[in-house]
Every structure is written in C-alpha cells, then in structure tokens.
C-alpha cells in the first residue's frame, strides 16, 4: 500500500536528544524534496521530563496532524505513558527500542504494532562514543529512505562542523547499518522535484516575520509558553532593523509599552498566551478607547488558569471577543495554518494601523510550535497605513467624527497636534466628557469604523461548493481541509469555510458563502463550544447546525470530523 505520508515519532526523556533527531530528519527531508512537518510534544519539566518529536513526510504540502504513527523510536520508556493519548499505534506501525532501557510498556505491546529490539546504547558506545540519539537518527533516516548525505549536511549545520558532528555521523552510520536488514515500512510516493521556493519555519517565527513585514518596529513581551519564540525572534531581528525590543516586568507592562510606542507612531506588537492575555485586557480596552493601534498575538494553550501550557486548544475565543469591559469593538483574527501565521499577522498590523484599534491574533500551540517545510508564500501587500496628517492647520481634534469614522492621528513632535490620548470617555477634541451625546458619538464612531470597513475576500477562505458546510477556524482548519481533499463522497458534497476574521462579524459576506448550504457542522477545539455559540449569536444562520467541539490537548483529526458527519447522516 502506498500511503500519503509517513509519520515518525522519536520519544525519550528531556535532554536525551529526541528533538535534535526530529529537527535533523525534518531538514534532511527538506533537502531531499519532501514536504515535512515537525511537532514537538513535551511536558512542563525541561530536563528529564517527557519529549516526543513527530516528523511527517509527504510529497504534498501537509495540512494536519498524522492519524497514526508509522514508526516509533523510543530512546527510553520513561514517562512514555504521558504520550499514550497522542500516539496512535496499530498493526501497520513499527516500534523500535533498546531492550537495555526496559520492557515495552503494555499499552504499546498491545497496540498490535510490529516490535523490533535494537541496542541503541551499545551501538553508540561501539561507534566511538556517539550519543544514542544519533543511532536513532541513522535508523530513522534509513527506514524513511533519507540519504546519508542529507543527514550529514543538516548535522554539519547544526553542530557547526565541530567534534559532535564527527562523532554524531559515526553514530548515524552505525544506525544506518543496523537498519539495513530491516524492512517493512510503507513509504509514500517519492516527492517530485518542485520549482516552488520552500522554507522551514514555525508558526511563531512566521507570525513575528509577518509583523516585521507589516512595519512593526517595536515589540515588548513577557516570557510565556508557548508564545516565547515569537518574542525571541523579534528580540533578535528588531535591533537589526533599527527597531526596539523590551523584555517587560509583566504582561501589564508589555501591553502598555507597546501602546506607548504606537502612540509615538511606531507600529508595535506583543505576544502572549491565555494567562497573559487576561492580564492585558484592561489596557487593550484602553487602546480601544484612546484609539491606539496595537497587535496582541495570543498563542493559545489549554486553559483555564495555568491549564496545560505546552499543549494546544482554541478556548481563548470567548475572552478575545468578549473579554473587554464596556462596549469595546476591536479586531480578532486567526491564522488558518502555520504558513498563514505570516500573512494573518501582517494583515492584523495593517488593519490595526488603518483602523486605529487593537487586534488580537489567535494563534495556538499547534500552529506556533510546529515547524513546517512548505512552499514559501508569495509576499502580500495591503495598502492601509495609519492616517497621520502631514501638518496641522487650525484647531486639531484628535477624535473628530469623520465619514469613515477614522480620525487623523498626530504624532508627538508634530507642532500644533498636541492632544491627550484619553481612556476616559471624551468629546471630539479628547477632553473628558460625561455627556450622553459625546458618549454615544464616540461609541458609534468606534463601532462604525470597524463595521463599515470592507475587509475583502481575505476575511475567510472557502473551499469546495457542497451543501454540507464545515465552519471552523485556526489550527483545526487543517483537519477539515484534509477531509475535503480525501472524502468527496459525502452526499451533496462538502464546503469548508475557514474564518480568518472572527470579529467584527461579517453577516453579508457570510450569507454569500453559505448560498446553497443545507447544513453546517461547526468544528473547534474547545470544551464549551465557544465558536458554535459565537456563530449562533453573531450571525443569522437559518440552516441546521451542529457543534463538534472537543478540548485539547489531542489535536482534532480529519477522521473525527468525518465520523461526526457520518453520524449526522445516519441519525
């Protein structure tokens, strides 16, 4: 059987080097023309805890998580039970471990997977003191059909050609030799060489890059899993571009620092996760009231409270849309793939700047920390810039009512443009006011500038034209996309509607996309059906609707969506 893709998991204690193996396999696959995807699964313990790296190879761009594991290489069995839920093994799977690391756990033995013993540690010792993970790398490369040269080139880059590279390659060679007699893995059809420019990038890096492409030159942040990599990349990149990065004392400071920078005219961003977003909410409301553009990326994790910091969920939708006190219209958007973290963040900055409003970008752990080898997207451009007057003539009114409800914004340094940005309700000049008329005018203005803006087609992706619509968002779009690609046999056909702009609602464009739709399955990774409820309350959807919601940390798979639809058919 030729399958669509190959999935290899390397598991072991933190520090045993599973992630190094995963990264090397990914890059080596990229050098050989494969599309690939690397997901890391880890617990809270940095050293000695559990780590699994799963690499998926395919001759086509990869949309979603693998349904099962073809090859599991266990460096040891410590804490493996913590991954049991995430690792689907069956009779097509192969499991290899070092008998010296103990017996195969029952759950794995009972999965029906084919088992092979291989003395990784002893082989490593014989290979001149290589680390056992290098043996595993050689075994995996051999079984996946990756060339020695591709592994060598990648390792050389990783270890900068130092001594670890030489001993590492000795280990790889011993692993390749040990795997030579082994066969039995079904490999996907080999990739066809493509002219498309490919890159290797995580969602968090792509989001940071998107911000820079949009002109962001100031960022501040407080470390938090799984968002820190967005900040790390910005911290390295911004100074080279003449920009500034600040590590703040907390999230309250981070969001206020970016508000200050943006008030000064420099487009600014921060990144955080659920707990940090909760801390930032008051000041995001300030940015709504004072009309200061800022972008906050929330790389969602399991919640509530500290929740499951290292795993994914889509359960910050409610707070992102409804979490601000008062009537506070703002933008909420979500990337629909790892690659799309680039453009969605770029778009968020551009819209935020034009509309002088905060934008919350809802990424999540599954997008942010997954590394992909994919086609590099063609650069996109949006022409929206902040409305800054060249000069000020006469009396300046910061919050002037205008036809498009966006007021010209002066920047410090501009003579005659002095005003006080105000979190209190104010009149058009910015002077605090408790008058009913001023309050209503400013509320209308802040709502209308968002409601009357034309967001264009980019607000949502529609794929397929069937009468059964799957409406979803964020990381689960990949699973739905995969279902559409594989299962055209549903009666009446499928249609995928993936929302990129979650707030404000787009009733007109949504109605257009739903023409001919007879029923809607709403798919999301939350326990409380947050997205389903939001669609029900925010849109006038008169067709039959069902919710398929499931919490993290295990990703939603295409096959689960298919099961939901089949059950709906038969009920």
């Amino acid at each position, binding site marked *: 059987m030729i399958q669509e893709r190959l999935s290899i998991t390397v598991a072991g204690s933190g520090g045993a080097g599973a992630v190094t193996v995963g990264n090397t396999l990914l890059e080596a696959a990229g050098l050989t023309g494969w599309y690939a995807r690397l997901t890391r699964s880890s617990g809270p313990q940095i050293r000695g805890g559990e780590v699994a790296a799963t690499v998926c190879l395919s001759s086509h761009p990869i949309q979603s998580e693998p349904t099962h594991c073809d090859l599991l290489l266990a460096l040891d069995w410590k804490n493996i039970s913590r991954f049991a839920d995430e690792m689907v093994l069956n009779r097509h799977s192969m499991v290899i471990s070092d008998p010296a690391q103990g017996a195969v756990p029952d759950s794995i033995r009972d999965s029906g997977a084919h088992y092979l013993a291989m003395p990784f540690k002893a082989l490593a010792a014989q290979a001149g003191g290589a680390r056992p993970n290098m043996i595993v790398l050689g075994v995996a490369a051999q079984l996946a059909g990756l060339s020695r040269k591709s592994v060598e080139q990648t390792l050389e880059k990783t270890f900068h050609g130092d001594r670890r590279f030489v001993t590492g390659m000795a280990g790889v060679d011993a692993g390749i030799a040990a795997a030579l007699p082994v066969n039995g893995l079904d490999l996907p059809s080999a990739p066809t060489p493509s002219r498309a420019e490919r890159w290797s990038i995580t969602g968090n890096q792509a989001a940071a890059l998107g911000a820079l492409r949009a002109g962001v030159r100031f960022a501040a942040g407080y470390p938090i899993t799984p968002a820190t990599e967005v900040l790390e990349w910005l911290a390295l990149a911004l100074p080279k*571009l003449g920009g500034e990065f600040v590590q703040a004392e907390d999230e*309250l400071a981070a969001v206020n620092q970016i508000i200050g920078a943006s008030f000064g005219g420099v487009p600014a961003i921060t990144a955080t996760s659920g707990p940090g977003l909760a801390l930032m909410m008051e000041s995001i409301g300030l940015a709504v009231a004072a009309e200061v553009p800022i972008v906050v990326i929330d790389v969602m994790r399991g919640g509530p409270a500290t929740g499951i910091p290292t795993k994914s969920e889509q359960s910050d939708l409610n707070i992102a849309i409804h979490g601000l006190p008062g009537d506070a219209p703002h933008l909420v958007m979500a990337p629909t793939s790892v690659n799309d973290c680039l453009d969605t963040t770029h778009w968020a900055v551009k819209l935020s700047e034009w509309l002088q409003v905060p934008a919350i970008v809802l990424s999540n752990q599954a997008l942010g920390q997954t590394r992909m080898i994919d086609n590099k997207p063609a650069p996109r451009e949006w022409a929206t810039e902040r409305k800054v007057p060249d000069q000020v003539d006469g009396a300046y009114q910061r919050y002037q009512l205008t036809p498009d409800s966006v007021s010209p914004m002066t920047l410090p340094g501009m003579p005659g443009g002095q005003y006080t940005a105000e*979190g209190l309700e104010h009149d058009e000049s910015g002077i605090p006011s408790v008058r009913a008329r001023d309050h209503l005018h400013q509320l209308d203005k802040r709502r209308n500038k968002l409601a009357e803006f034309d967001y264009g087609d980019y607000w949502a992706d529609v794929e397929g034209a069937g009468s059964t619509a799957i409406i979803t968002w964020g990381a689960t779009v990949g699973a739905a996309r995969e279902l559409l690609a594989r299962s055209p046999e549903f009666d009446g056909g499928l249609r995928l509607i993936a929302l990129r702009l979650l707030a404000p609602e787009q009733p007109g464009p949504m109605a257009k996309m739903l023409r001919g739709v007879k029923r809607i399955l709403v798919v999301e990774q939350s326990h409380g059906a947050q997205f389903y409820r939001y669609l029900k309350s925010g849109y006038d959807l008169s067709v039959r609707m069902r919710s398929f919601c499931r919490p993290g940390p295990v990703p939603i798979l295409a096959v689960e969506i298919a099961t939901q639809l089949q059950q709906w058919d038969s009920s």
Partner: protein
Amino acid sequence: MKGKPSHAFSTKCYKSDIKPIWCPGCGDFGVLASITRALAILQVPPEEVAVVSGIGCSSRIPAYLNAYGFHGVHGRALPLATGLKLARPELTVLVAGGDGDGFAIGGNHFLHACRRNADITYIVMDNQVYGMTKGQASPTTEPDWDLSQLTPGGPGMNPFLPLLLALGSGANFLARASSSDPGGAADILVEAIRHPGFSFVQILSPCLTFQPEQRKWKKMVRPAPVKATTDPVRAAKRLMTDDNFFVGVLYQGERDPYEESSEEVTCKLDSLESEFQLPGLL
C-alpha cells in the same frame, strides 16, 4: 506662537485652556505651575514634550498641559512612558501621578522603572491618600489614619518610603519637592529632566479635603541641609533618617541610562528572512 522666535516659550505656552477638576487648595495646582515653569526654563517646544499618567486626581495633569499627553489606565503610566521613550528617544517624557497609582497598583512598574533607568522623569504628587475615590488609605498613609471606612482604625501598616524604595531598586536621581514652593519644585524638575536616565521626584502635594492636617506641610518642609550625594550608601542613610520633609536633590548617581537600540538599519528584512530558506535540493 506666530511672530515670536521659537526659542521664547513662556510658562503660558505649556498650559492648556482646560480648567482643572481639583478641589480648592489642592497641592496639584502648585505642581502644575512647577511643571510649566520647568519646561519654560528648559525651552523645550511643547510638541516635543509628552506627559503620561494613570488614574487619580493628579493623573488628570496631562490634559491641563499644552503637550502631547496620555491619560491611561490605573497604575500603568510608567510602562506606557517607557515604550514611548524607547520608540521616540528624542522626546522629553514626563510621567505624573499620585501615590496610589505609583506605589500600590503600579508598584511593580515603579521598581522596574528605577531598575531599567530609561531617560524619563517620574513626578509623584504624594498626598498619602486616594482622593478621587473619596479618601482611602494609600501606601504612604500613616498606620493610625482612621478617616476611611475601608480601614477602620487605620491601615495598620507602616507607610512605604518611596525614595528609599527607589534607591534600593536602582534609581539614579532622587529628589523631594513641595507643591507649596512651585519655583523651588521647578528648579528641581529642571535638574531631574536634565539628568540622563530615570529621575524620580516626590512632590509633597497636600489633599486638604481628605487630609486636612497636611495644611501644616507648608511650614514643615525645608531645604535639605547638605548637597546631593553621589554615594548610594550615604543616600540610604539620609533617607532612613530624614523626617520626609527635607526638599532638594537628595541623590544623584552615575549609572548609565538604559540604552535603546540604535536606529541604524544594519540588515534588510529580506536577509533576515533568508534564515528560513532551505538550501538547494541535493
């Protein structure tokens, strides 16, 4: 300003035409006068000044000035000003607020602003009370002050010593002034603004409505008997032993200010992006 040379900014140039909401006799009037006076001495063009504040009676001050202003949320003025200053280093950035805003809800930012040492001036109008919410104990209120229903019998905790806290957090310019002497306070503010790095000025600014006893402050304040020290050990001793009514610059250290990244572009975005590029296929 038409027809006048641009270097002649009078105190009036820094005043807006909005009437303050403050009670009669509020010390903040004196602070407002000292800020406009200091800016006139420094001759900074009003558009190059930004005044950032949080919430409270004193935090209303940006609107009363002719400058760029930001009246933000409670307790977050310092980080907002830090972001502004680092993004726009050429601006003169002042932060103004009260003791509740600065030392209670914003306490953590106060410590870290002292430590970061960005070139901003922080003016705290200290009246030892929350005025805007009608008289509750603040972090600088005496433990036996029993005029608030929220803390019957008094807060029962010793007040913060803001200048000492600032010193311990790494602040490099510490001064105390009094709203009853706007001229003297203005001179201190001039020094604070000129000082490279974070400067902290505690201005005793009475609230006659909720702390009528503070009427006496005017007679209790007096110039510090010795000049500012550059030795943090001596400064600590002075601040531990003074009675909180000496005014003047009390400590001026020599720590380098926080350095923002150069505005020079050393790399194009395209070349940063190339880090993600896969090398050619094997």
